[in-house]
């Protein structure tokens, strides 16, 4: 009987430790987008270069919409080369579209001058309308839309080459 009191220690420690341990690896903010499986929002918006781009100009090609900002560091800086490399690698098979998220165009141009401009279009999302339609919670966030205009996947947080390849596969790019 006297030794039973030692059981108290594992009885208290093990369940608490296990329970708290299970919390790792879950991101409480990683919310599945309700847009997945739905038609992507359509838009026609001015780009940073002063031209205009619309979803109807994407002519049935898969595209990705990347919400970013010059103040989003280090995440947007980290994923910037990943986006540039995807744009170069897939050429006409994939359209990369950047969207300024709550950012001043001049600051965004400074960012591109500093970290390299791969040449894809960046939309000036006045009033954050597009970000609202996509339900963006914070940059960087990237939506993957297939050739039929259906949202297939979403990346919350910075993309890496591996994540990019995996997400692109969902819209039939790169296989």
């Amino acid at each position, binding site marked *: 009987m006297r030794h039973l*009191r*030692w059981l*108290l*220690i594992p009885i*208290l*420690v093990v369940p*608490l*430790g*296990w*329970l*708290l*341990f*299970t*919390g*790792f690896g*879950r*991101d*409480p*903010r990683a919310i599945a987008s309700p847009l997945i499986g739905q038609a992507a929002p359509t838009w026609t918006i001015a780009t940073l270069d002063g031209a205009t781009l619309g979803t109807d100009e994407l002519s049935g090609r898969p595209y990705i919409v990347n919400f970013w*900002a*010059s*103040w*989003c*560091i*280090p995440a947007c*800086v980290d994923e910037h080369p990943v986006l540039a490399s995807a744009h170069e690698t897939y050429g006409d098979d994939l359209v990369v579209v950047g969207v300024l998220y*709550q*950012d001043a165009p001049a*600051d965004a141009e*400074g960012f591109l001058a*500093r970290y390299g401009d791969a040449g894809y279009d960046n939309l000036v999302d006045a009033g954050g309308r597009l970000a609202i339609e996509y339900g*963006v*919670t*914070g940059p960087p966030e990237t939506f993957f839309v297939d050739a039929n205009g259906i949202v297939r996947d979403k990346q919350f947080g910075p993309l890496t080459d591996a994540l990019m390849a995996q997400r692109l596969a969902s819209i039939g790019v790169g296989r």
Partner: protein
Amino acid sequence: MATGTGMIPSIGHAAVLIGLGLTAYALVAYVLAARGGDPRLGISGRRAVIGSFVAAAVGCVAMMISLLTHDFSVLYVAENNATSTPPFISVISLWAALEGSILFWALLATGWAALVLHRYRDRHRQLIPWVGATLAAINLFFFAVMVWPGNPFLRTAPVAAEGLGPNALLQNHPFMALHPPLLYLGYTGLAVPFAFAIAALATKRLDTEWLRIVRRWTLIPWIFLTLGIVAGAWWSYEVLGWGGYWAWDPVENAALLPWLTATAFIHSAMVAERRSGLKIWTSAMVIATFVLTLVGTFLTRSGIVASVHSFTQSAIGPWFLAAIVISLAGALTLLVWRLPNLAGDGRPSGTVSRESAFLFNNVLFLGLTFAVLFGTLLPLLVAATSGDTISVGAPWFNTVTVPIFIALLFLMGVGPALPWGSASWATARERFAIPVIAAVVVVGLVLALGLRDPASVGTLGLAVFVAAVMGDEVVRGARARGRTRDENPALATWRLTTRNRRRYGGYTVHVGVLVMAVAVAISSGLATDRTVTLAPGETATIGAYEITHDRLVVEPLANDARIIETRAEVTYSGPQSGSLGTALRDYPNSPTVVATPAVRTSLAEDLYVTLLASDAATQTVTLHLFVNPLVVWIWIGGAIVGGGAVFAIWPERRARRVTVEHPQRAARPSVENA
């Protein structure tokens, strides 16, 4: 402008490394001293602890300078500061996010350790080496976190031209300068009683020595924790814009949990000190309190539970989990090992006595702790077992905890009026007749006035009962003193209370709790709110107030043009009148707009106006209007609690300390051995 890669962050990082080295040395020195080594080891250990405090201070200053000079080569600065951030916000950004908080935490933790070890440098020679070793081990953990997973001085390359700016919620109200430091002072300070408990268990010096020392060292952090919780509730009321002050958010619970067990400890320690009872219980409460401060920090900062406070996913979580498991398992092992030394030397006492009131008090506090812990961890448990996401909301917590709080309120009146040992029926009748009558009269009165909400009426009745018991106690004591010493009533009351600071300080704390309890019951029972949509010039009414929407303004903030404010300018008339602006602020780094409610406070009620939505074209606004009665009394009650506790720990004049003033105690000198 960003100043590039200066020396300051390198100095900060070096200070952290030095702090780690000194703390590790202190741990080794104190363990050797405790095991009977050269006494000079203890002296050098103490100096190392003081050195680690200086190192942490240098680290904090380096971080503040980096923030003030917007040195974006430091990742923490780039993530929590921008060139437009005003100096005040830059300074308090030290605790705006995880890594800086840990640095600040280390400063406070080493500060407490240095203070305690310095103060008792020539006393308690058996206990202090173990106290030093325990505190050094705890501080070693914080320094190690800063050296490995949570380096506050981590550099970025390339250096960003502009930083992310401070978390939107933190820059929206000056209370953010107050609430985290108070909480951290409480959390870190509660390591001191834990260290003394470990020392007492390790050395088998389980008499009242350590309890007498830690009484004050528990009350001081308890005061900070209490004020931190109240300030957090106030902040949430003034900033979050939902009209309430307590939402049972996991992080609020995280602060409440150690507060509950610390409060239980403060009460059971009195029994342990005076009557040698409840010793195992008291030691367990100290251990639980410390472990719960770690669990609280873990829940708050690891990002495991989603809340306003979980800013980051980070690698620090596993470290905290290891610290929780090690400290809980270690302390429990020591406790179980010493169980035979702790058990069974308490004197017997009657069922109706102050001891049993204290025991009930502790059982209730522990029940509350379990209930709150269960509700907080249940979403985690469900996610782990079934993968579903659930949330345990305020209604559950209210249903479970309100009856326990009410029972505690009742005990608060009964407990202090009962004698130690055992109470007779006659004593009970004599003590409680007037308070019961007073409570019945007041309940009848408010019912007659039309108050019907059962929780409000019940709480009010109980509060009157408790206040009457305490008032009666003071009057009796003062009268007895006035008779025997020939003092006038005012002088007698003053002397009675200032020479029994512990008792009457405790009563004052209880008065503060009563004020808060009544204010919470009335404000949650009788608050009114409505949502209105108004075009310019239109008027709505809420309670006795008339609210007129004057105009809608959308403009950047004067001190930071990146923050866009949409503000409804409103005039109000009624019990209070004037004009106010209630706004939504759009921060560039916040995914959602941040409410900036307008609160107009009077002693009777708050008028609370939040902007929900607006239409720029028509200038129409949708406002959420609240009239919250008595809310200001919650903050006043919190201040009374803090003041009472300060009164209780204020040093008594030693020469007069031997006098026994209380009539009831004087009649029972045999039980006074503390």
